[in-house]
C-alpha cells in the first residue's frame, strides 16, 4: 500500500536535492537518481550586463567557493581585453586559489564528512555533526576549524573580505600583498601543516581499518577523469592545460585548451534535474562520464611537484591504485591537495615578486569571445562569454564542477542503494536511517555545492523516495 514517511522539519529542504529509487514490479531496484531541483538562471540574467561585472556577479553563485568563479571570470576577462597580466598578479591569483582550495577542503573534511567517519554511520543523527565532533574530539575539531580559518584569512588579507571579495578583475588583481599579510601567512603555516599531518594520519588509519567497505561501495567504478595539468604534466589548479585520463591509466586526451571545450565536452539534459549532465563528447552520453575535482586532479597529474605532497601522492596511489576509481578516495585526495596547497603557499610567500606593486593592466575590449578556466575545489570550472562591440554579454555558458560529477554522483547513489537496501524490497518497507546516511555520504564524497550551503550546521537537506514500477511513491523520507 502506498504511503509516505516524513521526517520533520522539512523547511530546509527548499528543493535542493532529492533521491529517487526506482523499483520494478517485483520490488527490485532498477534505477537511482540524484535530482537537483533548484534553478538559478545565472547564464540568462547575465546577458546584457558588461563583462567587467562578471567576476562580481558570478562570485555570488557560491558562498563557499566564490573565488573559483572570480578567477574564471577574471581570466575570461583577460582574454576579452587580450592582455597578459603582470607576473605579480598571476602569482597573487594563484595564492588566492590555493587558500580557497585549502579552506574549502578543510570545510568538506572536518566540518561535513569527518563526523561520519569519527562518530560512526549509525550514531545519533542529531549529534553526527561538527558539534558532536567538538564534544568527542575537541582538539581535532578546533584544529580543523583553524585550518579553514587559515585559508579564509588569506582570502581576506588579499581581497579585503573572506567571502565575495571582488578582488580579481579582468587585467589582474586590485592590490598587492602587504608585508604584514605575508608575515601572518608565514607565521601560521606551521600550525596548518601540523593539522593536515594529523588529519592524514587519522584518515589513513581509518582507510586501513573501519572504512574499507566504504572504499569498495561508495562510487567505485571506472570512468574518465579530467583536470588541469602543467605542460610538464604536474598538478595544476589555475593555468596549464586539460587532460583526460581513463581508469586504466591511459591518457585519453592531453594538451587540451579550454577555448576548445565544446569540441570535447557536451552537455545532456534530463527532465528530472536542473543540473545538466556534461560528458566527454567523443564517447557520447552517458558513456562519456568523467569525474572532476581533487580525485580527478590527483589521477590526471603525473606528480604534484612538491616533496611532501609527492610522498603523500605516492602513498595515495599505493592505497587506492595508480588511478583511484573509488569516489570515497575524494576525501583522502582532498587532504593530499591541502598538503600541496600549503607547500605551494609557502613557496609563493617567499617570492619577492609577489610584493611588486604593479598588479593590474588596463585595456579596452579587443575580443568578442573568450573561455576562462580555473580548478575550483570541486573541479574544473569553465566560463564562456560572448560580447558585443560595447562589451555587453550576449551569451554566457558556465560549466560548473558539481555538474560535471553529475553522472558519477548518480552512479554512486545507485551503487550504494544496491548495496544497502534489501533486494527485493518487501512491501511496507521503511527506509532505514543507515541507508539515508550512507546515500548522503556518497553524495558528500563529491562535496557538491548544494551541501555547502546548508549542511555546515548539521545535515544536508535530502529527500529519498522509493518509487514502484507504476510510479507510486512507496515510501519517502525527508530531512532538512
Amino acid at each position, binding site marked *: 500500500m502506498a504511503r509516505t514517511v516524513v521526517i520533520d522539519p522539512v523547511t530546509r529542504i527548499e528543493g535542493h536535492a532529492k533521491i529517487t529509487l526506482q523499483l520494478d514490479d517485483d520490488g527490485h531496484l532498477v534505477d537511482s537518481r540524484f535530482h537537483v531541483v533548484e534553478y538559478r538562471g545565472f547564464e540568462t540574467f547575465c546577458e*546584457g*550586463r*558588461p563583462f*567587467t*561585472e562578471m*567576476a*562580481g*556577479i558570478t*562570485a*555570488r553563485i557560491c558562498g563557499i567557493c566564490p573565488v573559483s568563479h572570480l578567477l574564471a571570470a577574471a581570466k575570461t576577462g583577460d582574454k576579452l581585453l587580450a592582455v597578459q597580466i603582470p607576473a605579480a598578479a598571476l602569482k597573487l591569483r594563484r595564492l588566492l586559489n590555493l587558500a580557497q582550495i585549502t579552506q574549502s577542503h578543510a570545510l568538506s573534511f572536518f566540518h561535513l564528512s569527518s563526523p561520519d567517519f569519527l562518530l560512526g554511520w549509525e550514531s545519533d543523527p542529531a549529534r553526527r555533526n561538527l558539534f558532536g565532533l567538538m564534544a568527542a574530539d575537541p582538539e581535532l575539531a578546533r584544529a580543523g576549524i583553524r585550518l579553514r580559518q587559515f585559508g579564509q584569512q588569506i582570502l581576506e588579507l588579499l581581497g579585503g573580505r573572506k567571502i*565575495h571579495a*571582488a578582488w580579481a*578583475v*579582468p587585467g589582474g588583481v*586590485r592590490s598587492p600583498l602587504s608585508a604584514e599579510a605575508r608575515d601572518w601567512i608565514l607565521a601560521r603555516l606551521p600550525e596548518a601543516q601540523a593539522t593536515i599531518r594529523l588529519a592524514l594520519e587519522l584518515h589513513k588509519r581509518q582507510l586501513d581499518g573501519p572504512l574499507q567497505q566504504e572504499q569498495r561501495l561508495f562510487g567505485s567504478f571506472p570512468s574518465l577523469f579530467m583536470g588541469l595539468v602543467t605542460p610538464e604534466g604536474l598538478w595544476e589548479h589555475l593555468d596549464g592545460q586539460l587532460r583526460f585520463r581513463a581508469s586504466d591509466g591511459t591518457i585519453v586526451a592531453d594538451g587540451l585548451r579550454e577555448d576548445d571545450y565544446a569540441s570535447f565536452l557536451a552537455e545532456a539534459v534530463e527532465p528530472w534535474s536542473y543540473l545538466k549532465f556534461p560528458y566527454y563528447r567523443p564517447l557520447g552520453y552517458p558513456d562519456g562520464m568523467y569525474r572532476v575535482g581533487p580525485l580527478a586532479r590527483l589521477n590526471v597529474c603525473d606528480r604534484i611537484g612538491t616533496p611532501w605532497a609527492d610522498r603523500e601522492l605516492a602513498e595515495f596511489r599505493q592505497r587506492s591504485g595508480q588511478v583511484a576509481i573509488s569516489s570515497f578516495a575524494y576525501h583522502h585526495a582532498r587532504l593530499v591537495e591541502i598538503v600541496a596547497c600549503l607547500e605551494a603557499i609557502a613557496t609563493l610567500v617567499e617570492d619577492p615578486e609577489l610584493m611588486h606593486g604593479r598588479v593590474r593592466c*588596463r585595456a*579596452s575590449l579587443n575580443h568578442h569571445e573568450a573561455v576562462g578556466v580555473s580548478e575550483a575545489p570541486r573541479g574544473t570550472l569553465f566560463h564562456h562569454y560572448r560580447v558585443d562591440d*560595447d*562589451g*555587453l554579454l550576449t551569451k554566457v555558458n558556465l560549466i560548473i564542477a558539481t555538474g560535471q560529477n553529475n553522472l558519477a554522483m548518480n552512479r554512486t547513489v545507485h551503487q550504494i542503494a544496491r548495496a544497502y537496501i534489501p533486494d527485493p524490497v518487501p512491501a511496507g518497507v521503511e527506509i532505514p536511517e543507515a541507508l539515508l546516511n550512507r546515500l548522503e555520504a556518497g553524495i558528500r564524497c563529491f562535496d557538491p555545492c548544494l551541501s555547502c550551503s546548508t549542511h555546515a550546521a548539521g545535515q544536508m537537506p535530502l529527500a529519498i523516495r522509493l518509487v514502484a514500477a507504476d510510479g507510486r511513491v512507496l515510501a519517502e523520507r525527508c530531512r532538512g
Partner: protein
Amino acid sequence: MSVITLQVDGRDVAVPAGSTLLQAIRAAGLSVPTLCHLDGLDPVGACRLCLVEVEGSQRLLAACASEASEGQVIRTDTTQLQGYRRMAVELFFAEGNHVCAFCVANGQCELQDVAVAVGMDHSRFPYQYPQRSVDASHRHFSLDHNRCILCTRCVRVCDQIEGAHVWDVAERGSDCRIVAGLDQPWGEVEACTSCGKCVDVCPTGALYANEDTTAEKHPHPERAHQLRRAREHQQWLR
C-alpha cells in the same frame, strides 16, 4: 546683505535673504537627507527626500528648492516626515534594479547611504524589475539605466558647468529615462567632451567608468561646487 531669521527644530537661525530652507537647516547645524540636490547645481526638488514641515502650511516643502522667509518655523524630523522619506527610498529601490552586491558604486553610493540613514531594511512595495538596458557605447564611460534614479544631476552638471548639454530626460512615468543627444547611443553624441563630470556627480552606479568593476567607483560630487566657485569667484579651492 539683509538677513532673515527663522526657527528650525526649535533652534533660532539667521541666514542671508534668498537662502533656501536647506541652507537654513544646515546653518542650524542640522541635516536632512538629499539625493537630487548637489551644491554647485541648480535645485530641482526631484527626489523629495528633503521634505520639511512649515508651520502654517498645509504642504510639505522640498527644502532644497524652497526659499526661506522671515519668521518661519520649520520641522525636519517628525514621525510623518520620517515615514515619507523611508517610503520615497523604498520606491527608488522598488522602481529600478538596484543590486548592490556587484554594483560599481557599492560602498560609495548615496542611495545606499540614504537607505541606511532612513532605516530602510526592505521595501514594502513590490519590486518592478523593469527591463532596462546599459549604454556602453562611450569609449570611457557607461550608463546603466537599471541604477538611474532620475535625480538629473548629470543633466544639470553637463548643462550648467560643462556647457555641453549632452543629457536630457525623455518619456514619462515609469518610462522616464535619461537620454544622450537626440536619444542616441552616448558614444555617438558629438557634443560630449568626455569630461566625466556626469560620472563624478552621479549618486549611484548608473554612470561609471568602463574600467571600474564591483565597488570600484570613486565619485566626486564635490567637484560641481568646486568648479562653480572657481568660475564665479575665482577661488580654486579643494
